[in-house]
């Protein structure tokens, strides 16, 4: 196992409010790390700092090349699914169009959306768009893949498919870091969970252990809220 991500003491302030207050986070190849926390705990911001989309005030981030899948996918709306996937390989990496399309189709097939290759983003369902977004991120072969709330746009049946697919990706030699508030999904698929509260890591370790017997009040509150939410649904 090699270390795809090593972040130490990451701090970020917005105005006088500390969003991240010294976060350490690492991920090894083969891992699927889940970042959990209440809204505003800093988990999405942490992903964006790792991706280089947000500046940081202090701390160090050493990360391999990063791919990212956004909660709202952000596919390029004017391009069909396969063109979304081939754009970066052809334009950034200089891969030939033929090779890029072959690989893109392979990725889309792998993720179960090969039949939607010619569809425009607006014609895709939430789950399909997410898979295309994953394929787009994978097309440039990043050793580290970040996913922001990947289960948010999925129905329960699709969640398992996604979980399997993510584990498969981790096994094939990548490190994955995702944010999630879905403790069932994290318990079933994540290899490690990191709980953030108020911009600090308060608890981390094996998902089964942490989510079954949470120690920190923030983790307990998080799980209670999740259960209440599911109860309402």
């Amino acid at each position, binding site marked *: 196992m090699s270390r795809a991500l090593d972040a130490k003491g990451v701090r970020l302030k917005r105005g006088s409010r500390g969003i991240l207050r010294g976060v350490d986070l690492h991920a090894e190849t083969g891992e699927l790390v889940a970042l959990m926390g209440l809204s505003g705990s800093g988990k999405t911001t942490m992903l964006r700092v790792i991706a280089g989309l947000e500046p940081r005030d202090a701390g160090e981030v050493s990360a391999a090349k*990063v791919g990212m899948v956004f909660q709202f996918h952000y596919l390029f709306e*004017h391009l069909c699914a396969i063109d979304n996937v081939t754009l970066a390989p052809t334009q950034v990496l200089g891969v030939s169009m033929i090779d890029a399309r072959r690989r893109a189709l392979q990725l889309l097939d792998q993720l179960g959306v090969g039949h939607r290759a010619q569809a425009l983003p607006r014609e895709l369902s939430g789950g399909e768009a997410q898979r295309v977004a994953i394929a787009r991120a994978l097309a*440039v072969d990043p050793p580290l893949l970040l996913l922001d709330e990947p289960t948010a746009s999925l129905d329960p049946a699709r969640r398992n498919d996604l979980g399997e697919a993510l584990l498969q990706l981790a096994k094939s030699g990548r490190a994955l870091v995702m944010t999630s508030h879905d403790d069932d999904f994290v318990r079933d698929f994540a290899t490690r969970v990191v709980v953030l509260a108020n911009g600090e890591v308060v608890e981390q370790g094996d998902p089964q252990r942490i989510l079954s017997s949470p120690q920190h009040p923030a983790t307990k509150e998080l799980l209670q809220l999740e259960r209440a939410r599911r109860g309402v649904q």
Partner: protein
Amino acid sequence: MRTRLYLLVLLALAAAAPLGAQQILRWGGDAEGGAPFVEADPRDPSKLVGFDVEIAELIAGKLGRTPQFLQVQFTSLDQSAKRGDFEIGLSGIEDIPARRQSLAASIPYYEFREVLTVRDGDRGRYRSLADLKGKRVATLGGTMAYDLLLDAERTHGITAVSYDDDVHPYSDLVLGRVDGVVLDNVLADRAMRRNTGLFTHPDALAVGHYIVITAPENTALRDQVDRILRDAMKDGTLETIFRKWNVWNDDQLRLYERAANPQEQTASTAAPSTGELVARYVPSLFRAALITLVLSFAAMALAVALGVLIATGRVYGDRFSRLLLTIYVEVMRGTPVLLQLFVIYYGLASVIRLPAFIAALLGLGLNYAAYESEIYRSALEAVPRGQLDAARILGFTRMQTLRLVRAPQAFRLALAPMTNDFVALLKDSSLVSMLTVVELTKQTQIFATNIGSWVIPGLLCALLYLAMSLPLGYLARRLEERWRMPTI
């Protein structure tokens, strides 16, 4: 409190009193025409002076009425008289058959010669219109001189250039934008005093007369005006007025003799029928529509190209360039395009002498670039930030992101407002007639002046504009449907 109210009522009555006491004679003219016809008194701009002012006062006086001036643009005087905006009109109005046909016209009160003015250095070379083959010759639109030049286009191969005023033909002659000016001797004399380096050939290219016009049904007033003019010719009042304004010459004596014997007056030539006139003008309307179309397309292309640069600069540029571009956009949007056209064509003439069409293209293009840039800027900003983040993580440079992700989507968003702007530009292009470009609206105006009615020219003009703008709207709707963006 109460006394103050009384005072107000009294004041109002006092102000209204003169209106009731003596009837007003509304007379129309164009003060922009300037001296010696009608102009604002340089010593007191609220007063008007000029020989036409004095003749109007003379007529009003003889009718026992108070003259009241109404400012009407020269080319609109006929229509305004017909509508009854004023009772008599005089402002160097020429005696032409179409006018006699559509209005009640007085006897001529002044005889003028159409004369050719050239630059001093060309006086030996350009002695007549025939010498000006292939050259541009300017005049005031909607006048006898313009018709004269249109004939010369056919017979001598000159290019007639029409202006909306009589100042700029001569200043453009000095600048070399045109090589000759044909106007009446009164205007030519005035121009000679104002400009140096010009020479006016004394021989008349044609002879014409100034008349007083009234609404066509108001022949009674016209007959009264005729009587007053004849009397003023006999008793020397007119001569005094014309001498005062330095426009008296022996031509007038012969005119007065003829006026005294009205039977000789019927020697006017038969005017061509409306049908003939329409047939004569339709091809020129089509030519003018083509100019409108070419000008609009070229100006829009310039506006789009510049607009893209401005919008990109405002979205991506540093603070300084953003500030500069914002100032440009606000200045262009905040001042009238007409003013901008004048500045580019006339204002910059001492620095760079742009041909009229190029100046028109630049003026419209630079102005519309400001509007286009705003459309593109908001379209660029409407593309979700998340897509830009996604592109950045995928490794695109800013330029690649703009070219491959942001601009293509922004273009689809900008399409509908762009089409609206293009239709607006098509119509705004009529403003460039101020720079002597005869486009569709200008040609229609010339047409209307010459046949003395707006009905047919107006209808044809509207149809031509619609024929140009409707397909564009249709095309834009089709493209928009095809590229419809999801609600983001």
